[in-house]
């Protein structure tokens, strides 16, 4: 028999050194964000560069809020609205279609599923220019509709829910619902959706993160007067690039919500990503 401590050392200490180093490199930029965001502007040019947080965060973030050109709070609100609406829609449409593909029989099922998988491999920028023109015609330039409506469904959402539904929900369960005279939608709402909850949560988290962080399209279609958070940050960063502490205070606040979400649900998010990788 080998004792626990012997087991521990069977994984060589070098392994831990390398992993701790990687973890430090991963986390350092967050710390750096905090250092610069809480320092007053004049300490930025210090040599050696500042390494510890200061006490000027309130002052720095106050400048962000007073900055009429950056519309930081509008950006924050817009990002919350856009990410939430898109997330709810992606989870609902994804689970509904995923359920249909996994558990209902209909003509053309396989070919339609294949079509959805193909859409997942299309580079997103392909349609950017005409989409921009379409938004002009629809009158959605600088409107939140432009950054919400095209993203209400994703092929990834359908596919992920389909994979989960086909293994998590037994055909007997659905049959039992039918025998009780439930309509297909009732079966979805009362039986399938509750059973899909774990996968729906992961899909929801991933979708929220993706939309919160999305940049190119909002940057193309929104103006600095009505930005999402990321567009506001980018505008701050190049219009006020000399005021680093202001830019970093805003960046830290904009990053914080997702870091909190990740600390709370990181285990599930990582599980979802790793499972998805094996299946595809």
């Amino acid at each position, binding site marked *: 028999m080998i004792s626990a401590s012997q087991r521990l050392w069977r994984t060589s200490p070098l392994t831990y050194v390398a992993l701790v180093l*990687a973890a430090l490199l991963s986390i350092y930029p967050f710390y750096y964000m905090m250092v610069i965001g809480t320092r007053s502007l004049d300490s930025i040019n*210090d040599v050696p560069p500042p390494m510890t947080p200061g006490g000027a965060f309130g002052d720095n973030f106050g400048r962000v809020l007073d900055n009429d050109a950056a519309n930081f709070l509008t950006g924050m609100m817009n990002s919350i609205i856009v990410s939430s609406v898109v997330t709810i829609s992606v989870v609902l449409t994804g689970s*509904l279609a995923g359920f*249909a593909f996994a558990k209902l029989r209909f003509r053309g099922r396989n070919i339609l599923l294949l079509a959805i998988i193909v859409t997942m491999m299309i580079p997103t920028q392909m349609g950017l*220019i005409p989409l921009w023109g379409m938004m002009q015609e629809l009158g959605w330039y600088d409107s939140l509709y432009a950054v919400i409506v*095209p993203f209400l469904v994703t092929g990834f959402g359908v596919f992920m829910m389909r994979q989960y539904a086909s293994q998590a929900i037994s055909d007997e369960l659905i049959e039992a619902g039918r025998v009780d005279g439930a309509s297909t939608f009732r079966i979805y709402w009362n039986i399938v959706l509750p059973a899909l909850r774990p996968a729906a949560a992961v899909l929801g988290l991933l979708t929220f993160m993706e939309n919160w*962080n999305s940049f190119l399209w909002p940057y193309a279609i929104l103006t600095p007067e009505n930005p999402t958070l990321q567009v506001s940050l980018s505008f701050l960063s190049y219009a006020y690039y000399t005021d680093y502490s202001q830019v970093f205070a805003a*960046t830290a606040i904009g990053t914080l919500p997702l870091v909190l979400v990740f600390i709370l649900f990181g285990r599930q998010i990582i599980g979802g990503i*790793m499972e998805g*990788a094996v299946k595809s």
Partner: protein
Amino acid sequence: MSLSATTAPPSPAPPPPDVAARRRRGSLLNRLDLKYSPYLYIAPFFLIFGIFGLYPMLRTAWMSLHDWDMVGDHTFIGLDNYIELFSDDYFWNALVNTFGMFALSTIPQLLLALFLATLLNRTFLRAKTFFRMAIFVPNVVSVAAVAIVFGMLFQREFGLINWLLSLVGVDQIDWRAHSWSSWTAIATMVNWRWTGYNTLILLAGMQAIPKDLYEAAEIDGAGQWRQFWQITLPMLRPTFLFVVILSTIGGMQLFTEPLLFANGSIIGGNQREYQTLAMYMYEKGIYNLSTAGYGAAVAWAIFMIIVLVSLINFILVRRSAK
């Protein structure tokens, strides 16, 4: 057996009258529900994707065959836009830049991810979840925030990186002034954000390899290094291909990091030192609305490059199987 011959087969109990009646009444509705509701459920995806995904893509192709002004006229010019691309120095410049950054990000990143995944795959590793989360957390940060933070780290006068380099006697580097240095800085951002993600994907692939392969190798006296080369790497091939193709799709569309590194200038540096293909597409198609047709041609060129690079990867990985 006589017993079973004399016993009547159990007959199903007749349904209670109200259920039977409800079934008859609802039977037409029921049949419609069974037959058509699946289409109803998958319709939202196809509807919205059709309008905002597929249609714009086809329209990109159509536009690319025109001299197309987004706010004015358009005339059909066949393949002229594509022919022009071949002699467009700015396009080739963007292509070289994109591939430069792609190489500087993908190659070290995948090697590092492979290394980290091997470490995380150790059976008796402590604090597994902590390490996984710590390595993945950069992926949670928006590209805009990453670009802001690293833009500062690579600042010329008081950036941390130049200060660290000064400790070993390297003179201040103006990271934004040369191709190689700006590519390195931008690739560093990409690497920081994506190494952890790729590590997890590779780790998942490693964990799907049957354990008895390793046990058999152990009995045959194969060391760890040998097991890695003879079992892990070959079995990991499909996962590796997946990761490479994902990186290719992402790398060819690189946009935000170089844009913010250039303080929002769409040409990426004074001499276009780090303008990528995606930035060039944006410059031609949206920044200058009058050349939208040409921008659309750039979009299709990017698409074809992605397909080509993915195919080459596919063949290389395939061939290494033999």
